[in-house]
């Protein structure tokens, strides 16, 4: 069915989501600045960026809650401006804010969203049971949602996006406000969904994007600043490597000696951080010894997406 629609509109069948110069301006504030994205079917794509980067605005345009100021996008071949209802039939959305019907119980919430998506009551009965078990809410299925803890609400918020088994899933900061344990559970669940559905996830946790995503788009001030797999981003974007050394006797002489050899050397209470385009572990340890320092431990620091972000935008992910 989607195949036919795609053919009819002459759209490339491999992409679940495509944006074309997608732009949103809120009374003079440029929230999304002409982004072009192409997300393949079955891909888990993460938009990583600090608060206010425009991630939520992008998702809201893609699920037809907001009208773009300029440009357009296609979701499963349907244009967001032309066929919003077609899109709403195939998507599941877990909004950034937890939005539940507070005086309905968990089961009723799931059933409501399921029925609005046209799922038969019989199917819903098994699906919602399964979903409540997966999200660890089975025991509280018949309790009014307003009595739930923040974490429980958050899990139900995600479950509501999944109850109708949508082809495309939008997860806006799915682990926001969860404790570490629940966060891990939700991440594992999302990882299990990967491959089966197309997922667009937003987050400002770089480890989440790193762990979950097939590809990451780094977003800042409404623009996609960098795009690629996490490995690509880390290797291509970071030409420099960093080594951290813990040592005694880091005298000014030692520091001056190392500064003469490497582009960047920083010292902080018995710990030295050395960065350069090329680093040789053994060579550095030998040089330190030769200068009179006693090395206790040393390791090459793996670059993180945080470093990538810092390098591209010149600022941290959380500020």
């Amino acid at each position, binding site marked *: 069915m989607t195949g036919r629609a795609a053919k009819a509109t002459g759209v490339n069948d491999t992409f679940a989501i495509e944006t074309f110069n997608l732009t949103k301006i809120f009374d003079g504030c440029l929230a999304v600045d002409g982004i072009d994205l192409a997300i393949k079917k079955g891909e888990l794509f993460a938009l990583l960026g600090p608060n206010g980067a425009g991630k939520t605005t992008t998702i809201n345009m893609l699920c*037809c*809650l907001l009208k773009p100021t300029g440009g357009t996008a296609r979701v499963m071949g349907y244009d967001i401006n032309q066929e919003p209802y077609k899109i709403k039939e195939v998507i599941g959305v877990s*909004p950034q*804010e937890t939005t*539940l019907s507070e005086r*309905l119980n968990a089961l*009723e919430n799931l059933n409501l969203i399921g*029925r*609005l*998506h046209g799922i038969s009551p019989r199917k819903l009965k098994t699906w919602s049971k399964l979903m409540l078990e997966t999200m660890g809410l089975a025991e509280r299925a018949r309790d009014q949602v307003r009595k739930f803890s923040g974490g429980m609400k958050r899990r139900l918020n995600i479950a509501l996006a999944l109850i109708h088994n949508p082809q495309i899933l939008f997860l806006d900061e799915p682990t926001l406000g969860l404790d570490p344990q629940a966060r891990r559970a939700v991440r594992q669940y999302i990882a299990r969904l990967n491959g089966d559905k197309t997922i667009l996830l937003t987050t400002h946790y770089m480890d989440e994007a790193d762990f979950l995503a097939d590809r990451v788009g780094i977003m800042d001030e409404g623009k996609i600043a960098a795009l690629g797999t996490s490995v690509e981003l880390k290797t291509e974007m970071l030409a420099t490597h960093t080594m951290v050394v813990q040592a005694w006797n880091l005298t000014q002489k030692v520091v001056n000696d190392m500064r003469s050899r490497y582009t960047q050397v920083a010292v902080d209470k018995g710990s030295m951080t050395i960065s350069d385009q090329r680093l040789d572990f053994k060579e550095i340890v030998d040089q330190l010894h030769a200068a009179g320092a006693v090395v206790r431990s040393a390791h090459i620091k793996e670059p993180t997406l945080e470093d990538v972000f810092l390098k591209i935008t010149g600022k941290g992910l959380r500020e």
Partner: protein
Amino acid sequence: MRFWQLSLRSFKETYRDPLALGFLLAFPLMFMLLFGAAFGGDTAPSYTIGVIDEDQTTVSQSFVSEALASVPTIEITTFTETNTALEQLELGDLRAYIVLPEGFGEQVLLSWQDGEADIALNITYDESDLMASEQIIASINTATRAFARIEIPVTINANPINIETEITNIDYIAPGIIIFGLLIMIPTSARIMLRDKENRFLSRLLTTPTRPWEFISSYSLSLVAIAITQIIVFILLGWLFGMDIVGSILLAFLIFLLTAICSIGVGMVIASLTKSENQGESLSWLFSMPLAIVSGVWFSVEFMPSYIQTLAHAFPFSHAVDAARAVITRGVGLEAVSGDLVFLAGWAAGIFILGTILFGRTMRS
């Protein structure tokens, strides 16, 4: 059906909220009690009525001495001359006077024989004394029908004249208060949708393929259930305070229901146009309070400038007040209020279409 699922949800959200539910029922209840206490009282007012028997048949004479004399709320004084009765009316000694025209007895006899008759009475009263006169007309109507043993209301040629007095009565007041109670469904309706808007649950619902008309009609359906409960409470209370429903209770109910639907529709329009509960609620009160006054829910608006009356007539509530009073106090039938009913129904349909269009426009900003 999507809209049914949404209605159920809306209804559950309301009845599981004791505070909201309490407010919905307590607020109108309070109004009714307040007005009931002010205008009801336990002493039924007694009116002195003049009677001029121009027919002078045995039937007309027994009508005066038996039927009219047995009405508890009126006291009869007979006159031979219309002029003397009018003088007394102007002096305030009489509240109204009735003229039994020639042929009255003949028509009553006809109705006794084969049921087909055209019984007419002429009644003259002070037009500013609307409440009393409504009740006098209602009582005389009932008495005449009992006397003539007919089902249909009698033709009463009302002839209001202008004399200054001020007396109120529950029969006149109650229908207006009920309409007022239904008018304040406007803020209630707006609030229910705006709550979903403000806590963003509506956004989540908007990511499902639900259409604008389904949203509007589902919110409304759950509100109609509330409205029906309110109307029943109103009618029961009115009855407790001594409101007589002379006409058909079903017809009165229909008028009230259509009024409620119009209010709900206005609430939906306001909710579609505003963003927060506070905004919507202020706008609702700003709209419904002046409208209540010019629609004549508390007092007659005949003294107001004609353009205000024209304005009031563009909205359904003044029509509802007129129709409800006509049915409840004068016992008129469907035909007499059909114009008002059509206006109410048309207005309800129009406001729902407008609400749906506005909701559709604003659901994607």
